[in-house]
Every structure is written in C-alpha cells, then in structure tokens.
C-alpha cells in the first residue's frame, strides 16, 4: 500500500485548494447528504450531479473512482439483505415478497454510502498526504495525533513492503497451506513484523532525539486560505446544504 493514498497527480482547481478547506467541505457535504430523508429521491439525484461535477472539475479518471467504490461492498451485501430480513408490511416486487421499510432502508444505505465514498475519494485523490496533515493541523487536531498520523503515513509503505517481502519469502519456499496452516504461517510472520516495526519506531525516535527533538514537532502548515478559496471550496457543500434544507421545507 502506497504512502500516497489515492492521490492522482494532475493539476486542477480542486487540487490547488488548501487541504483544510477541502476537509471542511467534505464534512459539510456528507453531513447534508446523511441528514436528508431517504424518500427525497430527487435530492439524492441533485447530490449525485454535484459530485459528478466535483469529479470532473478535479479531472479524476472515472475508472479510479469506480474501482475505489468497491470498499463499500460488504455494506452493499448488508443493504441487499435488508428487504428480506426486515419486518413490517410486505410489498410484492417481481414476485418476491419484500419488506417495505427494508427496501427503503436498502436504498438509504446504498445512496448515502455511495455518495459519501465518492465525496471522500474526491478529497483523497486531490490531496497529498503532507497537505492533508497540514490541513488537519490547521483544523486544530491535537498535535500528538497529527504527529502519530504523520509517522503512520510515512511508514505505511515501509511496513507494507516488509509484509510483502515476508509473503514472497514464504511462498518462494514452496509454501501453499491449507486453512489452518495458512493462519499459522500468517500469524507467525505478523509477530516478526511487529517486532520489526516497533524496533524501527525506536530507531526513528533515536534519530529524532539525535537531531534535537524535545517533544514538539515543527509545524507543517504555512499559509491559510483566502476567503475566495473558502467560497470556491465550499460551493458544492453549500449547495448540498441548500438542497437538504429545501427537502425539509417541501417535506413539511
């Protein structure tokens, strides 16, 4: 797993926005989506249009977004089961007897979950890890947490490479285990991986202290966002909030 996350290195208006603006925008947008009643189908249509606009503006490959959507597969399964297991009045769909609330619930999970993932993909594909850290720092995430995050992201690829090399070593020695054997081999390797990772953590701390670290990490963020950047970044989110409010007004 790369330490770059899902970053797509092209240049776009969205890429150039400060990270903290994008994080706030994502949060506002998703909050608006989540608090929209599931039956307001038209609102979800509008949200989808807005997100497509964001994906296009960010010049992201559609294929990448689609591939990344698979992270929600377990919940799609859960959602598809809902119409069968939920209680309440039944409705007949194509000869299947389904629960009404289950059908709506499945739609609710699928629509909101998918929109949320697409929005998160837009953030992670347009924001490099360092910018993301600087953004979180600017949003006043506690410094200790930012530091832990920073080290985790830095060493993600190093630890994953270690794990990968251990698997290759295992397989190149003709390993092909059954179920129990597999679990045992994996578990043993993971133990060694922890000792390695932990010892690296100790050495990194030594390296930090060697260069005068006394408990405070230097700040990453240097400049804030202009009001026009805030406005640009929040444009879609504010539109989404407007839609969410409109649903309430129309609904009442």
């Amino acid at each position: 797993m790369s330490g770059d996350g899902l970053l797509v290195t092209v240049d776009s208006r969205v890429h150039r926005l400060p990270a903290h603006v994008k994080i706030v925008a994502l949060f506002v947008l998703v909050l608006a989506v989540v608090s929209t009643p599931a039956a307001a189908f038209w609102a979800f249509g509008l949200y989808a249009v807005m997100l497509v606009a964001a994906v296009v503006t960010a010049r992201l490959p559609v294929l990448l977004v689609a591939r990344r959507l698979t992270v929600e597969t377990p919940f799609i399964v859960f959602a598809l089961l809902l119409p069968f297991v939920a209680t309440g009045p039944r409705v007949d769909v194509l000869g299947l007897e389904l629960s009404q609330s289950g059908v709506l619930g499945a739609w609710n999970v699928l629509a909101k979950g998918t929109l949320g993932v697409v929005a998160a993909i837009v953030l992670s594909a347009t924001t490099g890890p360092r910018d993301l850290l600087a953004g979180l720092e600017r949003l006043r995430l506690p410094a200790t947490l930012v530091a832990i995050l920073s080290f985790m992201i830095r060493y993600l690829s190093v630890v994953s490479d270690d794990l990968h090399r251990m698997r290759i070593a295992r397989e190149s020695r003709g390993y092909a285990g059954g179920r129990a054997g597999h679990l045992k081999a994996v578990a043993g390797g993971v133990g060694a991986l922890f000792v390695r990772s932990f010892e690296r953590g100790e050495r990194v701390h030594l390296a930090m202290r060697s260069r005068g670290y006394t408990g405070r990490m230097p700040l990453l963020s240097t400049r804030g966002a202009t009001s026009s950047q805030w406005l640009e970044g929040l444009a879609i989110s504010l539109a989404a909030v407007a839609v969410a409010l409109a649903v309430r007004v129309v609904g009442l």
Partner: protein
Amino acid sequence: MPVHVPDGFFDASTSVATGLIAAGAVGFSLQRANREIRETGPALAGLTAAFVFAVQMVNFPVGAGTSGHLLGGALAAALVGPWTAVLVMSTVLLVQGLLFADGGLTALGTNITLMGVVTVLVGYFLTRALLQVLPRRMGSVVPAATAGALLSVPVAALAFTGLYAIGGAVDIPLGKLATAMVGWHVLVGIGEAVITAAVLSAVVANRPDLVYAARHLQRDLVLVDADGNTSTVAPDKPIAAKPAGRTLGVGVAVSLLVAGGLSLFASAHPDGLEFVGAKLGFESAAEDSAVAGSPLADYGVSGIGNAEVSGALAGIIGVLVTIVVGLAVAKLASVRANRAS
C-alpha cells in the same frame, strides 16, 4: 464483514452521539498517554498504527468461503497500553477514511467507538484481569491477551447491534441480528485470538520489554562492568506505577463514559434526539400527504416501535458493559492496593 461503517448507515443523531463518545475517548486517551508518548516518541505509536493498518489487509479464512481480518484493538492494547492503543486505532481509522476513502467521514465516530475504543478497552481490561489470576511470569500475557482478543470482537459486534437498534434506518428483528452478528464474530474473534497469540509469543520471545500489559513481570538485569564485576539492576521503568486510587478513578470514568453514552441513547430516544436527523424529516413527511398511502407510509410507525425495543436493548448492553468494565477495574485496583500495602 461489516468493518467500516459507511456514511448514512446510522441516522444522524447516532453518528453525532458516537462522534462525541469517540472525541471524548480520544481526548481522554491523549491526556493519559501523553507521558508515555513523550518518553517513547510519537514515532512508536505511528509505526504501531502502520503495523495495524498493514496487518488489517491480511485476510484469513473464517468459513463458508468468506474471510475475516485482524482488527488489532486488543493486540495493540496489550503491546502499547490501552490509551496509546486508542490513539493508534483512531489514527488507523482516520487514515483509512481520509487517505483511502474507506469508512464514511460522518461515521468516523461510530467506527472509532466500535473498533478503536470498545475492542481496546474490552481486550485490555480482560487481559489485565486474567494476568492477576494467572501465574506471575512473562508467558502468562499470551493466554491473557488471547482471551481478551477473542472476546473483544463479539463485544464490538454486540455494540454494533446495539447502535443499530438505536440508530439503524430499518426495523429488523434485533434478536436475529444480534445472534447473527455475535455468532459470526465469534468466528472472526478466533482468528483474531490466534494472530494475537502468535504476535505476542513472538514479541515475548524476542523483546519481552515491549509488552506493555506485562511490564510489571519483567526480570531484573545483570550487568558486568569493565573489571568483570557483576551487579543486578532493576530494568528501566519508563512509566512509574500509578497509584491504585488513580487507576480506580480512571476505570470509573471510563465505565461512566461507556454507560453514559449508551444510556443516553436509551433515555433520549425517541423524544430527545429526534430533533436532529433523518428520521424526523421522514416521519413528518410520511404523516403528511406526500407519501401517505404509498408503501412507505408505515415507516414512521415501525420506527417508533423500533425505538422502544432499541432503548431497552441499549440499556441492557450499557449495564452489562458497565458491570464487566467495573468488575475488571475493581479487581485491578484491589490487587494493586494489596500489593502496595
């Protein structure tokens, strides 16, 4: 299986409430772990988080052609202590959500509460409780933490069911859901336990000083000086032993946090938190004319029935969790007090 809850899976009020619980737990852990992190450095916690992240990608077969993977909460708690472990797990979830778009941002609180707080605390307190009973040597930490890991997963699944009862969008029979979730996650828990056992045995064999949960079981060091004289020295004690009173206080605070959070749902639903969130909007819409008579009209009614069941269930879980946590803490505190006197 349900690992990262996506956006919209629980209603907005549940997401906000779990968000508050998660923020409280992380804030509390930051304060508690502050000293350790200053001693050992944030790099160690970061590397542990990278390790948990990497290992979560290793799947193991569970049965029926499906697979599970390590959550790592109980393991991290045994290795780096409960407070650092909460930070480690939260960091993992934050990176998954922000850098890899895995797990919804509004569901971050829910995910941290279930996977970062519940698994860590259940795992750690059971581990410590068992260490008081088991023989006083380094190796005992392996079975103790294994049991902690085994239990932590189904308890997290039960907590998920509890949250679903409160904030799930759809009315499904909770008994069935709880049985299915817990039954399945006992199997996942076995995998979790096996990996936890293997990791801890490897660490105890190579670097016993790294196991936080068993620091008090370390042996003294033998030192040979330049002239060949031998002397015995106590091992480094990076963290001074905390007085029992404080441990008890911490335990009570945690129990109250957990119980309070859960019973908040129980009492506030269906009247209190209803002002926020999707349900209200939908119920009013349903009661008006727009969708009346449509297949969706009864949703609001079934939602209220759901809320009553959910309140009761949440209460029960809250009490159970409180009792378990409380007992573990009391046991810990009394043993420490005995040793001190």
